[in-house]
């Protein structure tokens, strides 16, 4: 078990090291001059040059890469060029919005998708199954920002049960959770659909297994068969997909945060790209690489708990 996990951890660290190179390269080739973005169209060549020197844009690539890595290792990420504030504070302030949003969406997605998937598999090729499949078809096709706008019109503008957008801050916990409900719902729609389908097909596979027939033959109740015997094994692919979804949620957050005016990491990335705030982009992307790698490690850990085989095989 320890060996299995340490191998996975080593793999993750190598991935991370490679990711820093890729991220740095991509950010550096972004067309656009941060100094020009700062000073605008009336800027003189001498002021532009002064800004480039001030922020070190004129340093050689390798120096800048090493400075960045050094900063990452010492947890000193430097200051945002656009805002002037420290990058770690900027990211920290945004994470407290995006992480709960993602967690709520993921929680909501699993809560709805797994029972739905089990239900659909149980009602295989009957109206219940068709209904669920129809729903997932819609869930996959509807863009989540559009769903978000519909939710706002219905629940915020017409009925005013929820705020139309914005985030009060965690000093007001109840209001904050309240503000995240609609965004989390819109963010989770597509994920519910995908996860439901994966659960359904995984359940259909396991329901055909011999041990399920054995369980039924020995007179186990339908719920024992479904949830104790079939679902536990079906959960392995479901967990994998849920882990992947965590990555997609980050991408979705960029859009959903815009619709709901949430000051989250997605908006930070979007704004930083527009401002060519390179130091922020680099660090946010690496942070999310770390986050996704961590989720994948957790998924590996979950495999090990759900299914003893990887521990041995590894």
């Amino acid at each position, binding site marked *: 078990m320890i060996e299995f996990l340490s191998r996975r951890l080593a793999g993750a660290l190598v991935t991370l090291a490679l990711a820093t190179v890729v991220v740095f390269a991509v950010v550096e080739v972004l067309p656009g001059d941060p100094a020009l973005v700062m000073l605008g169209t009336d800027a003189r060549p001498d002021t532009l040059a002064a800004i480039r020197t001030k922020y070190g844009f004129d340093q050689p690539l390798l120096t800048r890469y090493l400075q960045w890595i050094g900063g990452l290792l010492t947890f000193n990420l430097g200051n945002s060029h656009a805002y002037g504030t420290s990058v770690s504070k900027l990211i920290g302030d945004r994470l407290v919005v995006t992480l709960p949003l993602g967690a709520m969406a993921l929680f909501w997605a699993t809560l709805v998708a797994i029972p739905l998937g089990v239900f659909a598999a149980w009602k295989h090729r009957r109206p219940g199954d068709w209904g669920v499949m129809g729903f997932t078809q819609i869930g996959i096709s509807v863009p989540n920002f559009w769903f978000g706008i519909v939710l706002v019109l219905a629940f915020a503008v017409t009925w005013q049960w929820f705020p*139309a957008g914005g985030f009060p801050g965690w000093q007001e916990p109840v209001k904050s959770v309240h503000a995240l409900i609609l965004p989390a719902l819109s963010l989770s729609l597509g994920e519910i659909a995908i996860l439901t389908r994966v659960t359904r097909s995984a359940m259909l596979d396991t329901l055909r297994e011999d041990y399920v027939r054995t369980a039924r033959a020995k007179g186990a109740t339908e719920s024992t068969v479904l949830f104790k015997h079939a679902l536990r094994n079906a959960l392995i692919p479901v967990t994998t997909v849920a882990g992947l979804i965590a990555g997609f949620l980050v991408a979705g957050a960029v859009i959903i945060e815009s619709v709901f005016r949430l000051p989250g990491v997605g908006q930070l990335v979007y704004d930083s790209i527009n*401002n060519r705030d390179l130091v922020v982009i680099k660090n946010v992307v690496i942070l999310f690489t770390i986050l996704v790698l961590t989720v994948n490690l957790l998924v590996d850990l979950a495999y090990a708990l759900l299914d003893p085989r990887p521990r041995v095989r590894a």
Partner: protein
Amino acid sequence: MDSLSRRHLFGAAGMMMGALATLSVPGTEALAQGPAKDRLVIGMSLEPPVLDPTKNAAAAIREVTTPSIFEALGRIDRTGAVGPGLAESWNVSEDGKEYVFKIRQGVKFHDGETLDASVVKFTLDRLFAPDSTNPAKSLYTDIEKVEVVDPSTVKVTLKSPNSFLLYSLSLGDAGIMHPKSAPTNDKNPIGTGPFMFKERKEGDSITLVKSPTYRDPGSIKLNTVIFKIVKDPSAQVSALLAGDVDAFPGFQAPELVERLTKDPRFVVIVGTTEGEVILATNNVKKPFDNPKVRQAMAHAINREELISAESGFGVPIGSHFAPHNKAYVDLTKTYPFDLAKAKALLAEAGYPNGFEASLKLPPVGYAQRAGEVLANQLGKIGIKLAITQLQWPQWLSEAFKERNYDLTIVAHTEANDLDRYARDGYYWGYNSPEFKAKWREVVAATDFAKRDQILKEAQQIIARDAVNGYLFQLAKIGVWKKDLVGLWENAPTPQLDLTGVYWK
């Protein structure tokens, strides 16, 4: 063009919202709570990066800080005229080279420091110093020296007369800053204005509160002003409808205005801006270096159609000058819409079958809308445009700085920006000794009536030369609650003066 009014991510979302918004929305009236009478929430579609207008060119910084936090020597009023600001009066010498400013006494900065002539000298020296990184440095390089005459008098000497100096010294770029707080003004702006900076949540909001040390406390009716960042046009509408935002002085989605016009809770005020939307043309690149080609294009542009793509907002222009300015002359008929003439001119220029060119669009709503319409209009005389979408930073580097473009659409939002036609190496590559001479006269004019006359001639030169395609003047669409009084109808400068704004 520093409005940098970026188009929001999701035009599609906006359109969909538009469609949905036409459905009736019952029940909002009863639930909309009355706003607190001393608090104003202003929606902004762009977020200011730093909060120091001397460090960054973004228009949003000026909206938040000038003159609410930072005041300048002069103050631009709602008509665009310059009146006394931190200077209560000034004298200009006969030759236009010496300005003596009388500095207002008893003015305190928000941190308790006192304003005097030395503080003014510090601010002005920073503008044109060799190591100045002020985004508008070029406006101040005619200044030779700044001297403290006595604690309430400052003398500014110019190398050569500059008839725009007072205006330039009234901009946020010349906001008076104290040496003590200047280094940290980007995060914690401290000025002399009616409001003090309280807090900022990046990506979300900026809060100002009434300054207890302001010299005229009676003029300030609001205790708290919150600038709320709402980028997405559909989210702007829902923020207004849900009562989260009281006012959008610069509403960015003309296609969604109709929904708000019908709502009895809001007023929609359409005013003017300094933003000329032009089809910027690369005058040094073939075939646009041929005046006949540019004239042909001018004849093929149908401004009415372009304005209807803006949902009817905007005023046609025939030169690079704002119609509300008193020196304006109507030149829209210089090259009237006439396709036959346009084709004939193209044939004369050697392109009877037209040609292909690229149109690079920045991510702003008006450029996106006008781009599609223009591609269609020029297509009718055989000019086939391939549209490329650029992000702002790309546009700035590729089209503006490197001049790697054929045509682009952009709004030039500064006042007095005809001077760009006199600049060497500017991105449209216009080089006319005649215009440069004319512009030198404008700058050197000491008599404003005479200056207006020369400005008219200057407009005519660039209209005649069809340097760029002149499309329309951007409208300022303001939407706010109907019991809110005092917000400016027009935007003569990208500033937001909140003194005198109150709830009925």
